[in-house]
């Protein structure tokens, strides 16, 4: 049978220790819900570094290349105009706009990628609707995947780490 356990903590060091312990025991951590980014929780949960910087770099390069191409095309190919006797392809003069567009593409693009990857959008339903989580409490959600997670043992361990509230959730509910 599949079970989920939600444990609520009110201290940062407790959630860190409990998460680390759960991972060492091989429990599957669904997610940890925190009011602020707790430093070290990524290691405790075993999260890999995100690949978003690569996406950001790619978007920036794309923005720069596209804008540079467009400027050369517009100034030297589509409608060549002699402006103050300057060469039609005045590459150095095209650098500022190329740079700005690279930043614009990388910045707005990565925000868009973030929303897509995390599924954040205006009509999303929060996975946990506990007002304490966005205030000052921490919630650890673990899932029983095999016989290894014995509910009573797990509960005991979480209590030892200082959980102030433990609830078992049937698996159909929640995320």
């Amino acid at each position, binding site marked *: 049978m599949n079970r989920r356990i939600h444990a609520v903590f009110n201290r940062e060091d407790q959630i860190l220790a409990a998460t680390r312990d759960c991972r060492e025991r091989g429990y599957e951590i669904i997610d940890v*819900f925190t009011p602020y980014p707790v430093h070290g929780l990524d290691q405790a949960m075993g999260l890999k570094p995100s690949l978003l910087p690569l996406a950001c770099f790619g978007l920036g390069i794309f923005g720069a290349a596209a804008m540079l191409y467009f400027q050369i095309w517009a100034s030297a190919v589509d409608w060549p105009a002699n402006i103050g006797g300057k060469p039609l392809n005045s590459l150095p003069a095209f650098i500022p706009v190329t740079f700005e567009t690279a930043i614009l593409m990388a910045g707005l693009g990565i925000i868009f990628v973030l929303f897509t990857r995390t599924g954040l959008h205006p009509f999303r339903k929060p996975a946990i609707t506990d007002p304490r*989580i966005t205030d000052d409490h921490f919630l650890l959600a673990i899932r029983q995947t095999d016989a290894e997670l014995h509910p009573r043992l797990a509960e005991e361990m979480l209590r030892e780490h200082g959980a102030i509230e433990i609830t078992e959730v049937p698996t159909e509910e929640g995320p």
Partner: protein
Amino acid sequence: MSTHEVYSTLREPLVDGNLTPADVTRDVCAPMDGKPSGLWWVGFLIAVSLLGLGVASVAYLMAKGIGVWGLNRTVGWGFDITNFVFWVGIGHAGTLISAVLFLFRQRWRTAVNRSAEAMTIFAVMCAGLFPLIHMGRPWLAYFVFPYPNTRGPLWINFRSALCWDVFAISTYFLISLGFWYIGLVPDLATLRDRAQGLKQKLFRFFSLGWDGGFRTWHRYETVYLLLAGLATPLVFSVHTIVSMDFATSVIPGWHTTIFPPYFVSGAIFSGLAMVLTLMLIARKTMHLENYITERHVGAMCKLIIATGGIVAAAYATEFFIAWYSGNEYERFVFINRAFGPYAWAYWTMVTCNVLTPQLFWFSKIRRNFLIVWVLSILINVGMWFERFVIIVTSLHRDFLPSSWSYYVPTKIEIATFAGSFGLFFTLFFLFCRFLPVLAMAEVKGVLGYGRSRGGGDS
């Protein structure tokens, strides 16, 4: 992002008063929960009146044309471009605090970054207004963008510094807005969970279903760092490009290579002064004494000394190079700047920008917030005059003495400038009323509460 952050007991806590995360939520949300105070209404109504004055004067300008301004054949840029550069500069300190200090791991920034970023966005809006109305036919403003049109298509001239400006300012506005909004999302979720009715619906929409899941936080923090990394070169490029509006011309006094670093440091200098002006008011009126402490004000005063020093060095360098270049036009412009018809503006600038920040060397002055506030206003005045001096004194003595003239702003120009302050403060008052002025999620992270080796927790 190390697991083992060690807090020195010798280091002052970032937030006073041994607060818990719940205290932060309560303190920051308190001004939004009740009815606005009388003080808020007074400030807001003054700001809205000024905004109304600005709208009226711009409407008059639209109806009559640029002739209602005091510009003439010789001085083609006056209040409009001075105000544009002034407002862009104000914005830069917001980005410095939110992005540059973030990259340098200056954690004290958490208490001031939200309102400094808001200041950036509102200041850039005010800045963008001036070139727009200066165009004379602002309803054709979209001509500045390269869009496929029925005139050829005729593309814009990408070799022009003014075209670079369009891209720089619009990118700056959009990136600042994105950065600000990303920072707001977790706090909007906190507000959503506290609010009821229509407010809750709005916050639910804008908080994007945020639930504080750490898998989301993990990516969110990566993106926040990336945006800070993008905004840092951006802020330097924006004012560099603004300075190129002048530096790429052939006007003595403008045509100098020192302009980009000179403008950037001046911008950050003026912006920090504006942050102090606003922050000290917000601290007092919104009871944020525990969050914005002597440490924050002191750090900003020290940054003002540093950037003010760079600005003073730039003034001296300009004069030295004007003499050392042996170019008689260059020499004339600078001697004329200091001793000519606009000497009063020049010496106002020097007094406010070079002498005023020196008072911040004294810790007694840094701790007296009333004096700090007055000095920050003097720096704002000085930095406005810096742009005025650069623009008007370089133009008013043309190459032909028969074209020499003197520029005096008309009432309409002054009213428009006052109107831009009205716009800025109207938006700022609305922001203080409806959004959290402190980045709650970030402040909670630096409290030291709930950490066994935490600095503030005992």
